[in-house]
Protein backbone atom coordinates (compact mmCIF):
# COMPACT_ATOMS: atom_id res chain seq x y z
CA UNK A 1 0.00 0.00 0.00
CA UNK A 2 2.78 2.36 0.96
CA UNK A 3 4.73 1.26 -2.08
CA UNK A 4 1.71 1.93 -4.26
CA UNK A 5 1.35 5.43 -2.85
CA UNK A 6 5.02 6.14 -3.36
CA UNK A 7 4.83 4.98 -6.97
CA UNK A 8 1.75 7.13 -7.52
CA UNK A 9 3.73 10.15 -6.37
CA UNK A 10 6.66 9.16 -8.61
CA UNK A 11 4.19 8.84 -11.46
CA UNK A 12 2.79 12.27 -10.70
CA UNK A 13 6.28 13.73 -10.75
CA UNK A 14 7.08 12.07 -14.09
CA UNK A 15 3.71 13.18 -15.42
CA UNK A 16 4.43 16.77 -14.44
CA UNK A 17 7.77 16.59 -16.25
CA UNK A 18 5.98 15.27 -19.32
CA UNK A 19 3.48 18.10 -19.04
CA UNK A 20 6.21 20.75 -18.93
CA UNK A 21 7.63 19.36 -22.17
CA UNK A 22 4.29 18.70 -23.80
CA UNK A 23 2.83 22.13 -23.02
CA UNK A 24 5.42 23.88 -25.15
CA UNK A 25 5.33 21.26 -27.86
CA UNK A 26 1.56 21.30 -28.17
CA UNK A 27 1.50 25.10 -28.45
CA UNK A 28 4.18 25.01 -31.15
CA UNK A 29 2.29 22.22 -32.90
CA UNK A 30 -1.09 23.86 -32.60
CA UNK A 31 -0.20 27.41 -33.44
CA UNK A 32 2.55 27.11 -36.00
CA UNK A 33 1.60 23.69 -37.31
CA UNK A 34 5.19 22.59 -37.11
CA UNK A 35 6.46 19.23 -35.90
CA UNK A 36 9.47 19.82 -33.72
CA UNK A 37 11.31 16.58 -33.06
CA UNK A 38 14.13 18.63 -31.58
CA UNK A 39 12.05 19.75 -28.63
CA UNK A 40 13.90 17.20 -26.51
CA UNK A 41 17.10 19.09 -27.31
CA UNK A 42 15.85 22.08 -25.30
CA UNK A 43 15.24 19.72 -22.39
CA UNK A 44 18.80 18.49 -22.76
CA UNK A 45 20.20 22.03 -23.09
CA UNK A 46 18.36 23.07 -19.93
CA UNK A 47 19.60 20.05 -18.01
CA UNK A 48 23.21 20.46 -19.15
CA UNK A 49 23.38 24.23 -18.61
CA UNK A 50 21.70 23.86 -15.22
CA UNK A 51 23.88 20.97 -14.11
CA UNK A 52 27.09 22.58 -15.30
CA UNK A 53 26.42 25.93 -13.63
CA UNK A 54 25.28 24.31 -10.41
CA UNK A 55 28.42 22.19 -10.31
CA UNK A 56 30.59 25.24 -10.97
CA UNK A 57 28.86 27.57 -8.52
CA UNK A 58 27.54 25.01 -6.07
CA UNK A 59 24.11 26.62 -6.27
CA UNK A 60 21.12 24.79 -7.65
CA UNK A 61 19.22 28.06 -8.05
CA UNK A 62 22.01 29.56 -10.14
CA UNK A 63 21.82 26.44 -12.27
CA UNK A 64 18.05 26.82 -12.58
CA UNK A 65 18.41 30.38 -13.87
CA UNK A 66 21.18 29.38 -16.26
CA UNK A 67 19.20 26.42 -17.55
CA UNK A 68 16.12 28.52 -18.20
CA UNK A 69 18.11 31.26 -19.90
CA UNK A 70 20.11 28.84 -22.03
CA UNK A 71 17.12 26.86 -23.25
CA UNK A 72 15.08 29.98 -24.02
CA UNK A 73 17.95 31.55 -25.95
CA UNK A 74 18.65 28.36 -27.88
CA UNK A 75 14.94 28.06 -28.62
CA UNK A 76 14.71 31.59 -29.97
CA UNK A 77 17.84 31.14 -32.07
CA UNK A 78 16.46 27.91 -33.54
CA UNK A 79 13.15 29.62 -34.31
CA UNK A 80 14.83 32.56 -36.04
CA UNK A 81 17.42 30.48 -37.84
CA UNK A 82 15.59 27.33 -38.89
CA UNK A 83 11.93 27.04 -37.93
CA UNK A 84 10.87 30.28 -39.55
CA UNK A 85 11.71 28.81 -42.95
CA UNK A 86 9.79 25.63 -42.27
CA UNK A 87 6.33 26.92 -41.41
CA UNK A 88 5.20 26.88 -45.01
CA UNK A 89 6.75 23.48 -45.76
CA UNK A 90 5.00 20.16 -45.37
CA UNK A 91 5.39 17.91 -42.34
CA UNK A 92 7.98 15.78 -44.07
CA UNK A 93 10.51 18.60 -44.36
CA UNK A 94 9.84 19.64 -40.78
CA UNK A 95 10.43 16.14 -39.48
CA UNK A 96 13.70 15.92 -41.38
CA UNK A 97 15.05 19.34 -40.49
CA UNK A 98 14.33 18.83 -36.81
CA UNK A 99 15.76 15.32 -37.01
CA UNK A 100 18.93 16.93 -38.36
CA UNK A 101 18.80 19.40 -35.45
CA UNK A 102 18.75 16.47 -33.00
CA UNK A 103 21.94 15.10 -34.57
CA UNK A 104 23.56 18.54 -34.40
CA UNK A 105 22.54 19.22 -30.80
CA UNK A 106 23.50 15.77 -29.52
CA UNK A 107 26.88 15.81 -31.19
CA UNK A 108 27.66 19.39 -30.15
CA UNK A 109 26.87 18.42 -26.57
CA UNK A 110 29.27 15.48 -26.84
CA UNK A 111 31.93 17.87 -28.15
CA UNK A 112 31.41 20.32 -25.28
CA UNK A 113 30.70 18.07 -22.29
CA UNK A 114 31.90 14.63 -23.40
CA UNK A 115 30.00 11.41 -23.01
CA UNK A 116 30.28 11.17 -19.23
CA UNK A 117 27.03 12.01 -17.46
CA UNK A 118 27.01 15.04 -15.17
CA UNK A 119 25.86 14.63 -11.60
CA UNK A 120 24.36 17.45 -9.58
CA UNK A 121 23.27 17.61 -6.01
CA UNK A 122 19.89 18.62 -4.67
CA UNK A 123 19.37 22.15 -3.42
CA UNK A 124 19.94 22.51 0.36
CA UNK A 125 16.32 23.32 1.17
CA UNK A 126 14.95 20.27 -0.57
CA UNK A 127 17.63 17.72 0.21
CA UNK A 128 15.70 15.94 2.96
CA UNK A 129 12.51 14.01 2.93
CA UNK A 130 9.29 14.28 4.86
CA UNK A 131 6.82 11.70 6.03
CA UNK A 132 3.61 12.42 4.11
CA UNK A 133 1.75 9.45 5.46
CA UNK A 134 3.07 7.36 8.36
CA UNK A 135 5.84 5.04 7.27
CA UNK A 136 6.49 6.75 3.92
CA UNK A 137 9.31 9.26 3.87
CA UNK A 138 9.22 11.01 0.48
CA UNK A 139 12.00 13.23 -0.89
CA UNK A 140 10.99 16.88 -0.66
CA UNK A 141 12.70 17.66 -3.97
CA UNK A 142 10.29 15.42 -5.84
CA UNK A 143 7.40 17.14 -4.09
CA UNK A 144 8.94 20.45 -5.14
CA UNK A 145 9.03 19.25 -8.76
CA UNK A 146 5.35 18.35 -8.55
CA UNK A 147 4.54 21.73 -7.05
CA UNK A 148 6.48 23.58 -9.75
CA UNK A 149 4.69 21.61 -12.46
CA UNK A 150 1.28 22.36 -11.00
CA UNK A 151 2.22 26.03 -10.60
CA UNK A 152 3.23 26.17 -14.26
CA UNK A 153 -0.06 24.55 -15.19
CA UNK A 154 -1.98 27.22 -13.29
CA UNK A 155 0.22 29.95 -14.74
CA UNK A 156 -0.32 28.72 -18.29
CA UNK A 157 -4.04 28.47 -17.66
CA UNK A 158 -4.13 32.11 -16.56
CA UNK A 159 -1.85 33.19 -19.40
CA UNK A 160 -3.94 31.47 -22.04
CA UNK A 161 -7.39 32.22 -20.72
CA UNK A 162 -7.00 35.65 -19.11
CA UNK A 163 -4.50 37.64 -21.18
CA UNK A 164 -4.40 39.18 -24.61
CA UNK A 165 -1.46 37.00 -25.66
CA UNK A 166 -3.43 33.99 -24.51
CA UNK A 167 -6.33 35.09 -26.63
CA UNK A 168 -4.08 35.22 -29.69
CA UNK A 169 -2.69 31.82 -28.79
CA UNK A 170 -6.16 30.34 -28.56
CA UNK A 171 -7.20 32.01 -31.77
CA UNK A 172 -4.03 30.79 -33.48
CA UNK A 173 -4.63 27.23 -32.35
CA UNK A 174 -8.14 27.13 -33.74
CA UNK A 175 -7.56 29.06 -36.97
CA UNK A 176 -4.11 30.17 -37.95
CA UNK A 177 -4.96 31.83 -41.26
CA UNK A 178 -7.67 33.93 -39.70
CA UNK A 179 -5.36 35.35 -37.04
CA UNK A 180 -2.84 36.20 -39.74
CA UNK A 181 -5.53 37.79 -41.86
CA UNK A 182 -6.61 39.98 -38.94
CA UNK A 183 -3.22 41.66 -38.99
CA UNK A 184 -1.69 40.23 -35.85
CA UNK A 185 2.11 40.35 -35.72
CA UNK A 186 2.27 36.62 -36.10
CA UNK A 187 6.05 36.44 -36.46
CA UNK A 188 6.64 37.97 -33.06
CA UNK A 189 4.01 35.72 -31.54
CA UNK A 190 5.64 32.67 -33.11
CA UNK A 191 9.07 33.55 -31.74
CA UNK A 192 7.62 34.21 -28.29
CA UNK A 193 5.69 30.95 -28.21
CA UNK A 194 8.68 29.00 -29.42
CA UNK A 195 10.90 30.64 -26.80
CA UNK A 196 8.31 29.90 -24.11
CA UNK A 197 8.08 26.27 -25.19
CA UNK A 198 11.85 25.92 -25.11
CA UNK A 199 11.94 27.61 -21.69
CA UNK A 200 9.41 25.15 -20.27
CA UNK A 201 11.37 22.24 -21.74
CA UNK A 202 14.52 23.69 -20.17
CA UNK A 203 12.68 23.97 -16.84
CA UNK A 204 11.75 20.31 -17.09
CA UNK A 205 15.38 19.51 -17.85
CA UNK A 206 16.74 21.44 -14.84
CA UNK A 207 14.12 19.91 -12.55
CA UNK A 208 15.00 16.43 -13.77
CA UNK A 209 18.77 16.95 -13.61
CA UNK A 210 19.29 15.87 -9.96
CA UNK A 211 17.00 12.85 -10.43
CA UNK A 212 18.04 11.37 -13.79
CA UNK A 213 21.56 11.26 -15.17
CA UNK A 214 22.34 14.27 -17.31
CA UNK A 215 23.74 12.81 -20.51
CA UNK A 216 23.60 13.08 -24.26
CA UNK A 217 20.49 11.46 -25.68
CA UNK A 218 18.39 12.15 -22.58
CA UNK A 219 16.14 14.31 -24.71
CA UNK A 220 15.53 11.58 -27.30
CA UNK A 221 14.24 9.19 -24.67
CA UNK A 222 11.65 11.54 -23.27
CA UNK A 223 10.62 13.30 -26.49
CA UNK A 224 8.78 10.27 -27.84
CA UNK A 225 6.74 10.01 -24.64
CA UNK A 226 6.09 13.74 -24.96
CA UNK A 227 4.78 13.34 -28.48
CA UNK A 228 2.49 10.61 -27.24
CA UNK A 229 1.19 13.01 -24.60
CA UNK A 230 0.64 15.76 -27.15
CA UNK A 231 -1.18 13.51 -29.58
CA UNK A 232 -3.36 11.87 -26.93
CA UNK A 233 -4.19 15.23 -25.38
CA UNK A 234 -5.05 16.72 -28.75
CA UNK A 235 -2.72 18.92 -30.76
CA UNK A 236 -2.77 22.51 -29.55
CA UNK A 237 -4.53 21.84 -26.28
CA UNK A 238 -2.61 22.69 -23.10
CA UNK A 239 -5.42 21.22 -21.03
CA UNK A 240 -5.09 18.00 -23.00
CA UNK A 241 -1.33 18.02 -22.46
CA UNK A 242 -1.89 18.36 -18.72
CA UNK A 243 -4.45 15.56 -18.44
CA UNK A 244 -2.61 13.21 -20.80
CA UNK A 245 0.76 14.01 -19.20
CA UNK A 246 -0.41 13.15 -15.67
CA UNK A 247 -2.31 10.03 -16.76
CA UNK A 248 0.53 8.75 -18.91
CA UNK A 249 3.16 9.52 -16.29
CA UNK A 250 1.19 7.57 -13.71
CA UNK A 251 0.40 4.62 -15.99
CA UNK A 252 3.97 4.34 -17.23
CA UNK A 253 5.42 4.43 -13.71
CA UNK A 254 2.86 1.94 -12.41
CA UNK A 255 3.46 -0.51 -15.23
CA UNK A 256 7.21 -0.33 -14.80
CA UNK A 257 6.97 -0.75 -11.06
CA UNK A 258 4.48 -3.58 -10.81
CA UNK A 259 4.17 -5.45 -14.11
CA UNK A 260 7.44 -7.46 -13.89
CA UNK A 261 6.47 -8.56 -10.39
CA UNK A 262 3.00 -9.61 -11.49
CA UNK A 263 4.38 -11.54 -14.45
CA UNK A 264 6.88 -13.27 -12.19
CA UNK A 265 4.01 -15.04 -10.48
CA UNK A 266 3.07 -16.63 -13.80
CA UNK A 267 6.41 -17.40 -15.43
CA UNK A 268 10.14 -17.86 -14.64
CA UNK A 269 12.04 -14.87 -13.20
CA UNK A 270 14.40 -13.42 -15.83
CA UNK A 271 11.97 -13.88 -18.71
CA UNK A 272 9.16 -12.28 -16.73
CA UNK A 273 11.52 -9.39 -15.97
CA UNK A 274 12.38 -8.83 -19.63
CA UNK A 275 8.81 -9.24 -20.83
CA UNK A 276 7.49 -7.00 -18.08
CA UNK A 277 9.94 -4.24 -18.94
CA UNK A 278 9.12 -4.64 -22.63
CA UNK A 279 5.37 -4.53 -22.20
CA UNK A 280 5.52 -1.61 -19.79
CA UNK A 281 7.60 0.34 -22.31
CA UNK A 282 4.92 -0.41 -24.90
CA UNK A 283 2.17 0.76 -22.56
CA UNK A 284 2.04 4.43 -23.51
CA UNK A 285 2.17 3.67 -27.24
CA UNK A 286 -0.64 1.20 -26.85
CA UNK A 287 -2.66 3.88 -25.06
CA UNK A 288 -2.01 6.33 -27.86
CA UNK A 289 -3.08 3.83 -30.51
CA UNK A 290 -6.28 3.08 -28.61
CA UNK A 291 -7.12 6.75 -28.03
CA UNK A 292 -6.51 7.63 -31.67
CA UNK A 293 -8.71 4.78 -32.82
CA UNK A 294 -11.60 6.13 -30.78
CA UNK A 295 -10.82 9.83 -31.19
CA UNK A 296 -8.57 10.36 -34.24
CA UNK A 297 -7.78 13.94 -33.15
CA UNK A 298 -7.00 13.24 -29.52
CA UNK A 299 -8.96 13.90 -26.36
CA UNK A 300 -9.12 17.70 -26.31
CA UNK A 301 -8.42 18.69 -29.89
CA UNK A 302 -8.36 22.45 -30.34
CA UNK A 303 -8.85 22.38 -34.09
CA UNK A 304 -12.29 21.52 -35.34
Amino acid at each position, binding site marked *: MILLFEQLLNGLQYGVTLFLLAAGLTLIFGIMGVINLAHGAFYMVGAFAGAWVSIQTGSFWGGLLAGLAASAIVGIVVELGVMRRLYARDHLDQVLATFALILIFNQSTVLIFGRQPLFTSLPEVFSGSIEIIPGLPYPTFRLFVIAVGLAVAVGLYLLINKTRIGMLVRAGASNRQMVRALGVNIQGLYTAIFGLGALLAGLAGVMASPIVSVQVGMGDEIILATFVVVVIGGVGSVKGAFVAGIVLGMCDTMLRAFLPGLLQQAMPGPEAQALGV*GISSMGIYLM*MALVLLVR*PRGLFAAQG
Partner: protein
Amino acid sequence: MKREHIILAAVFVVLALVPFAAELTGQASWTRLVGQALIYGMAAASLNFILGYGGMVSFGHAAFFGIGGYVVGIMYHHFDAGTAFLGLIPGTDQMLITLPAAILIAGLAAALVGAMSLRTGGVQFIMITLAFAQMFFFLFISLKTYGGEDGIMVRRTNSLPGLNMRDKATLYWVVLGLAAAYYLFLRRLVQSSFGQIIAGIRQNERRMAAMGISTYRYKLYAFVLSGMGAGLAGALMVNFLRFASPDMMHWSRSGELMIMVILGGVGTLAGPFIGAGVLFTLETTLARYTEHWMLPVGIILLLVVMTSKGGLMALLRRLGGKG
Protein backbone atom coordinates in the same frame (compact mmCIF):
# COMPACT_ATOMS: atom_id res chain seq x y z
CA MET B 1 15.97 1.97 -76.70
CA LYS B 2 14.94 4.97 -74.69
CA ARG B 3 17.51 7.01 -72.81
CA GLU B 4 16.14 5.84 -69.48
CA HIS B 5 16.68 2.20 -70.43
CA ILE B 6 20.28 2.86 -71.45
CA ILE B 7 21.05 4.62 -68.18
CA LEU B 8 19.43 1.84 -66.14
CA ALA B 9 21.32 -0.87 -68.02
CA ALA B 10 24.60 1.01 -67.62
CA VAL B 11 24.07 1.49 -63.89
CA PHE B 12 23.23 -2.20 -63.52
CA VAL B 13 26.36 -3.28 -65.37
CA VAL B 14 28.56 -0.95 -63.29
CA LEU B 15 27.01 -2.26 -60.08
CA ALA B 16 27.45 -5.85 -61.24
CA LEU B 17 31.16 -5.21 -61.76
CA VAL B 18 31.69 -3.90 -58.22
CA PRO B 19 33.01 -7.21 -56.78
CA PHE B 20 35.59 -7.44 -59.59
CA ALA B 21 36.66 -3.86 -59.09
CA ALA B 22 36.92 -4.48 -55.36
CA GLU B 23 39.16 -7.48 -55.96
CA LEU B 24 41.34 -5.67 -58.49
CA THR B 25 41.93 -2.63 -56.30
CA GLY B 26 42.16 -4.65 -53.10
CA GLN B 27 39.32 -2.63 -51.52
CA ALA B 28 37.38 -5.67 -50.31
CA SER B 29 35.01 -3.50 -48.29
CA TRP B 30 33.45 -2.01 -51.44
CA THR B 31 31.26 -5.04 -52.09
CA ARG B 32 29.99 -4.92 -48.55
CA LEU B 33 29.31 -1.16 -48.66
CA VAL B 34 27.56 -1.13 -52.01
CA GLY B 35 25.55 -4.20 -51.03
CA GLN B 36 24.30 -2.54 -47.86
CA ALA B 37 23.53 0.67 -49.71
CA LEU B 38 21.47 -1.31 -52.23
CA ILE B 39 19.49 -2.96 -49.45
CA TYR B 40 18.85 0.37 -47.73
CA GLY B 41 17.86 1.67 -51.13
CA MET B 42 15.21 -1.04 -51.39
CA ALA B 43 13.86 -0.20 -47.95
CA ALA B 44 13.81 3.51 -48.78
CA ALA B 45 12.16 2.82 -52.14
CA SER B 46 9.42 0.82 -50.42
CA LEU B 47 8.83 3.74 -48.06
CA ASN B 48 8.85 6.13 -51.00
CA PHE B 49 5.95 4.28 -52.57
CA ILE B 50 3.57 5.30 -49.77
CA LEU B 51 5.38 8.50 -48.82
CA GLY B 52 6.21 9.95 -52.18
CA TYR B 53 3.47 8.53 -54.38
CA GLY B 54 0.79 8.05 -51.76
CA GLY B 55 1.46 11.01 -49.49
CA MET B 56 1.37 8.86 -46.35
CA VAL B 57 4.18 10.00 -44.06
CA SER B 58 4.95 6.82 -42.15
CA PHE B 59 7.44 7.33 -39.34
CA GLY B 60 7.53 3.66 -38.44
CA HIS B 61 8.79 2.02 -41.55
CA ALA B 62 11.84 0.52 -39.86
CA ALA B 63 9.47 -1.80 -37.99
CA PHE B 64 8.73 -3.77 -41.16
CA PHE B 65 12.41 -3.72 -42.09
CA GLY B 66 13.20 -5.19 -38.68
CA ILE B 67 10.37 -7.71 -38.78
CA GLY B 68 11.61 -9.03 -42.12
CA GLY B 69 15.05 -9.32 -40.63
CA TYR B 70 13.83 -11.08 -37.52
CA VAL B 71 11.92 -13.64 -39.58
CA VAL B 72 15.24 -14.74 -41.09
CA GLY B 73 16.94 -14.57 -37.70
CA ILE B 74 14.26 -16.52 -35.85
CA MET B 75 14.00 -19.19 -38.55
CA TYR B 76 17.75 -19.65 -38.49
CA HIS B 77 17.74 -19.77 -34.69
CA HIS B 78 15.28 -22.67 -34.72
CA PHE B 79 17.10 -24.37 -37.59
CA ASP B 80 20.34 -24.14 -35.65
CA ALA B 81 18.84 -25.33 -32.36
CA GLY B 82 16.72 -28.01 -34.02
CA THR B 83 13.61 -26.66 -32.32
CA ALA B 84 10.32 -25.34 -33.73
CA PHE B 85 8.81 -21.87 -33.56
CA LEU B 86 5.94 -21.99 -31.05
CA GLY B 87 6.49 -25.75 -31.09
CA LEU B 88 4.90 -25.94 -34.54
CA ILE B 89 6.96 -24.45 -37.33
CA PRO B 90 10.45 -25.89 -37.82
CA GLY B 91 13.28 -23.47 -38.62
CA THR B 92 15.04 -23.30 -41.94
CA ASP B 93 18.04 -21.77 -43.61
CA GLN B 94 16.70 -21.95 -47.16
CA MET B 95 16.46 -18.49 -48.71
CA LEU B 96 13.67 -19.66 -50.99
CA ILE B 97 11.57 -20.11 -47.86
CA THR B 98 12.88 -17.37 -45.58
CA LEU B 99 12.52 -14.48 -48.03
CA PRO B 100 8.88 -15.16 -48.95
CA ALA B 101 8.13 -15.77 -45.27
CA ALA B 102 9.74 -12.45 -44.36
CA ILE B 103 7.75 -10.64 -47.05
CA LEU B 104 4.53 -12.28 -45.96
CA ILE B 105 4.93 -11.62 -42.26
CA ALA B 106 6.07 -8.02 -42.78
CA GLY B 107 2.99 -7.63 -44.99
CA LEU B 108 0.74 -9.01 -42.26
CA ALA B 109 2.26 -6.63 -39.74
CA ALA B 110 1.77 -3.76 -42.19
CA ALA B 111 -1.85 -4.78 -42.69
CA LEU B 112 -2.40 -4.68 -38.94
CA VAL B 113 -0.63 -1.33 -38.45
CA GLY B 114 -2.07 0.22 -41.60
CA ALA B 115 -5.66 -0.83 -40.90
CA MET B 116 -5.57 1.12 -37.66
CA SER B 117 -3.23 3.99 -38.58
CA LEU B 118 -4.97 4.92 -41.81
CA ARG B 119 -8.08 5.89 -39.88
CA THR B 120 -6.16 9.01 -38.87
CA GLY B 121 -4.24 11.46 -41.01
CA GLY B 122 -1.66 14.24 -40.89
CA VAL B 123 0.36 14.58 -37.71
CA GLN B 124 -1.64 11.85 -36.01
CA PHE B 125 -0.73 9.41 -38.78
CA ILE B 126 2.98 10.21 -38.39
CA MET B 127 2.77 9.67 -34.66
CA ILE B 128 0.64 6.53 -34.66
CA THR B 129 2.93 4.77 -37.12
CA LEU B 130 5.82 5.77 -34.89
CA ALA B 131 3.91 4.37 -31.91
CA PHE B 132 3.36 1.01 -33.56
CA ALA B 133 7.01 0.83 -34.56
CA GLN B 134 8.00 1.53 -30.96
CA MET B 135 5.72 -1.26 -29.79
CA PHE B 136 7.42 -3.73 -32.12
CA PHE B 137 10.81 -2.40 -31.01
CA PHE B 138 10.04 -3.01 -27.33
CA LEU B 139 8.39 -6.34 -28.11
CA PHE B 140 11.54 -7.69 -29.73
CA ILE B 141 13.72 -6.26 -26.98
CA SER B 142 11.71 -8.21 -24.44
CA LEU B 143 12.01 -11.54 -26.28
CA LYS B 144 14.87 -13.09 -24.33
CA THR B 145 14.70 -16.32 -26.40
CA TYR B 146 15.73 -14.33 -29.46
CA GLY B 147 18.54 -12.41 -27.84
CA GLY B 148 16.59 -9.50 -26.36
CA GLU B 149 18.55 -6.29 -26.75
CA ASP B 150 21.54 -8.12 -28.21
CA GLY B 151 19.69 -9.56 -31.18
CA ILE B 152 20.30 -12.85 -32.97
CA MET B 153 23.44 -13.95 -34.71
CA VAL B 154 22.84 -15.76 -37.97
CA ARG B 155 26.08 -17.67 -38.26
CA ARG B 156 25.61 -18.65 -41.88
CA THR B 157 23.93 -16.82 -44.70
CA ASN B 158 20.78 -18.62 -45.90
CA SER B 159 21.50 -21.03 -48.71
CA LEU B 160 20.09 -20.94 -52.19
CA PRO B 161 20.18 -24.13 -54.28
CA GLY B 162 23.01 -24.18 -56.79
CA LEU B 163 24.84 -21.14 -55.42
CA ASN B 164 27.63 -20.81 -52.91
CA MET B 165 26.05 -18.12 -50.74
CA ARG B 166 29.00 -18.03 -48.37
CA ASP B 167 30.91 -16.30 -51.15
CA LYS B 168 30.55 -12.57 -50.59
CA ALA B 169 30.40 -11.75 -54.29
CA THR B 170 27.66 -14.31 -54.98
CA LEU B 171 25.58 -12.94 -52.13
CA TYR B 172 26.15 -9.43 -53.50
CA TRP B 173 24.89 -10.44 -56.94
CA VAL B 174 21.81 -12.02 -55.43
CA VAL B 175 21.14 -8.76 -53.60
CA LEU B 176 21.75 -6.75 -56.75
CA GLY B 177 19.43 -9.01 -58.74
CA LEU B 178 16.64 -8.64 -56.20
CA ALA B 179 17.19 -4.88 -55.95
CA ALA B 180 16.93 -4.57 -59.74
CA ALA B 181 13.82 -6.74 -59.78
CA TYR B 182 12.29 -4.64 -57.02
CA TYR B 183 13.07 -1.46 -58.94
CA LEU B 184 11.34 -2.81 -62.04
CA PHE B 185 8.41 -3.98 -59.93
CA LEU B 186 7.97 -0.50 -58.44
CA ARG B 187 8.27 1.02 -61.89
CA ARG B 188 5.41 -1.10 -63.15
CA LEU B 189 3.43 -0.51 -59.97
CA VAL B 190 3.68 3.25 -60.25
CA GLN B 191 2.58 3.20 -63.89
CA SER B 192 -0.27 0.78 -63.26
CA SER B 193 -3.82 1.96 -62.72
CA PHE B 194 -3.36 1.07 -59.05
CA GLY B 195 -0.35 3.41 -58.87
CA GLN B 196 -2.33 6.13 -60.62
CA ILE B 197 -5.12 5.84 -58.06
CA ILE B 198 -2.60 6.07 -55.22
CA ALA B 199 -1.10 9.21 -56.74
CA GLY B 200 -4.60 10.58 -57.21
CA ILE B 201 -5.36 10.06 -53.54
CA ARG B 202 -2.24 12.00 -52.63
CA GLN B 203 -3.28 14.91 -54.83
CA ASN B 204 -6.89 15.04 -53.73
CA GLU B 205 -8.37 12.33 -51.61
CA ARG B 206 -11.84 13.83 -51.60
CA ARG B 207 -11.99 13.89 -55.38
CA MET B 208 -10.97 10.26 -55.62
CA ALA B 209 -13.64 9.36 -53.08
CA ALA B 210 -16.18 11.33 -55.10
CA MET B 211 -15.18 9.29 -58.14
CA GLY B 212 -16.35 6.23 -56.27
CA ILE B 213 -13.01 4.89 -55.14
CA SER B 214 -12.73 3.44 -51.67
CA THR B 215 -9.64 5.44 -50.74
CA TYR B 216 -9.11 3.76 -47.37
CA ARG B 217 -8.85 0.34 -48.99
CA TYR B 218 -6.44 1.52 -51.68
CA LYS B 219 -4.26 3.26 -49.14
CA LEU B 220 -4.21 0.09 -47.06
CA TYR B 221 -3.17 -2.01 -50.07
CA ALA B 222 -0.35 0.44 -50.76
CA PHE B 223 0.72 0.40 -47.11
CA VAL B 224 0.83 -3.41 -47.09
CA LEU B 225 2.79 -3.57 -50.35
CA SER B 226 5.25 -1.07 -48.98
CA GLY B 227 5.65 -3.00 -45.73
CA MET B 228 6.33 -6.16 -47.75
CA GLY B 229 9.12 -4.41 -49.64
CA ALA B 230 10.68 -3.26 -46.39
CA GLY B 231 10.41 -6.82 -45.07
CA LEU B 232 12.29 -8.13 -48.08
CA ALA B 233 15.01 -5.53 -47.57
CA GLY B 234 15.26 -6.40 -43.88
CA ALA B 235 15.55 -10.12 -44.66
CA LEU B 236 18.34 -9.42 -47.13
CA MET B 237 20.12 -7.16 -44.64
CA VAL B 238 20.15 -9.88 -42.00
CA ASN B 239 21.56 -12.30 -44.57
CA PHE B 240 24.14 -9.75 -45.58
CA LEU B 241 25.28 -8.78 -42.08
CA ARG B 242 24.44 -12.20 -40.55
CA PHE B 243 22.89 -10.41 -37.60
CA ALA B 244 19.42 -9.25 -36.59
CA SER B 245 18.93 -6.79 -33.74
CA PRO B 246 16.21 -4.51 -32.37
CA ASP B 247 18.32 -1.58 -33.61
CA MET B 248 16.95 -2.37 -37.07
CA MET B 249 13.59 -1.01 -35.95
CA HIS B 250 14.74 1.84 -33.74
CA TRP B 251 12.86 5.05 -34.49
CA SER B 252 16.02 6.79 -35.66
CA ARG B 253 16.25 4.08 -38.35
CA SER B 254 12.80 5.09 -39.56
CA GLY B 255 14.08 8.66 -39.62
CA GLU B 256 17.09 7.59 -41.64
CA LEU B 257 14.89 5.86 -44.22
CA MET B 258 12.89 9.07 -44.56
CA ILE B 259 16.09 11.06 -44.96
CA MET B 260 17.21 8.74 -47.76
CA VAL B 261 13.93 9.31 -49.56
CA ILE B 262 14.03 13.09 -49.19
CA LEU B 263 17.72 13.34 -49.99
CA GLY B 264 17.30 11.37 -53.18
CA GLY B 265 14.01 12.86 -54.25
CA VAL B 266 10.46 12.21 -53.05
CA GLY B 267 8.22 10.45 -55.52
CA THR B 268 10.95 9.40 -57.93
CA LEU B 269 11.95 5.83 -58.71
CA ALA B 270 15.70 6.12 -58.55
CA GLY B 271 15.75 8.81 -55.83
CA PRO B 272 15.57 6.53 -52.79
CA PHE B 273 18.42 4.38 -54.12
CA ILE B 274 20.55 7.46 -54.78
CA GLY B 275 19.64 8.90 -51.40
CA ALA B 276 20.48 5.64 -49.64
CA GLY B 277 23.81 5.39 -51.48
CA VAL B 278 24.78 8.97 -50.71
CA LEU B 279 23.73 8.93 -47.05
CA PHE B 280 25.31 5.55 -46.38
CA THR B 281 28.57 6.51 -48.09
CA LEU B 282 28.58 9.84 -46.26
CA GLU B 283 28.09 8.16 -42.89
CA THR B 284 30.69 5.45 -43.37
CA THR B 285 33.26 7.82 -44.86
CA LEU B 286 32.84 10.45 -42.15
CA ALA B 287 32.81 7.77 -39.45
CA ARG B 288 36.26 6.76 -40.64
CA TYR B 289 37.67 10.23 -39.98
CA THR B 290 35.87 11.34 -36.84
CA GLU B 291 33.72 9.85 -34.12
CA HIS B 292 31.65 13.03 -34.31
CA TRP B 293 30.41 12.21 -37.81
CA MET B 294 26.82 12.88 -36.78
CA LEU B 295 27.54 16.60 -36.59
CA PRO B 296 28.51 17.10 -40.25
CA VAL B 297 25.77 14.70 -41.34
CA GLY B 298 23.24 16.75 -39.38
CA ILE B 299 24.48 20.02 -40.86
CA ILE B 300 24.44 18.64 -44.41
CA LEU B 301 20.92 17.28 -43.94
CA LEU B 302 19.69 20.56 -42.55
CA LEU B 303 21.16 22.45 -45.48
CA VAL B 304 19.66 20.00 -47.98
CA VAL B 305 16.20 20.27 -46.45
CA MET B 306 16.32 24.05 -46.16
CA THR B 307 17.73 24.85 -49.55
CA SER B 308 16.58 22.22 -51.98
CA LYS B 309 13.26 21.11 -53.26
CA GLY B 310 13.09 17.68 -54.82
CA GLY B 311 16.42 16.34 -53.56
CA LEU B 312 19.31 15.02 -55.59
CA MET B 313 17.10 13.69 -58.41
CA ALA B 314 15.91 17.23 -59.14
CA LEU B 315 19.52 18.35 -59.16
CA LEU B 316 20.51 15.56 -61.57
CA ARG B 317 17.60 16.37 -63.82
CA ARG B 318 18.54 20.03 -63.90
CA LEU B 319 22.12 19.08 -64.79
CA GLY B 320 20.87 16.60 -67.36
CA GLY B 321 18.54 19.21 -68.85
CA LYS B 322 21.39 21.65 -69.37
CA GLY B 323 23.96 19.16 -70.62
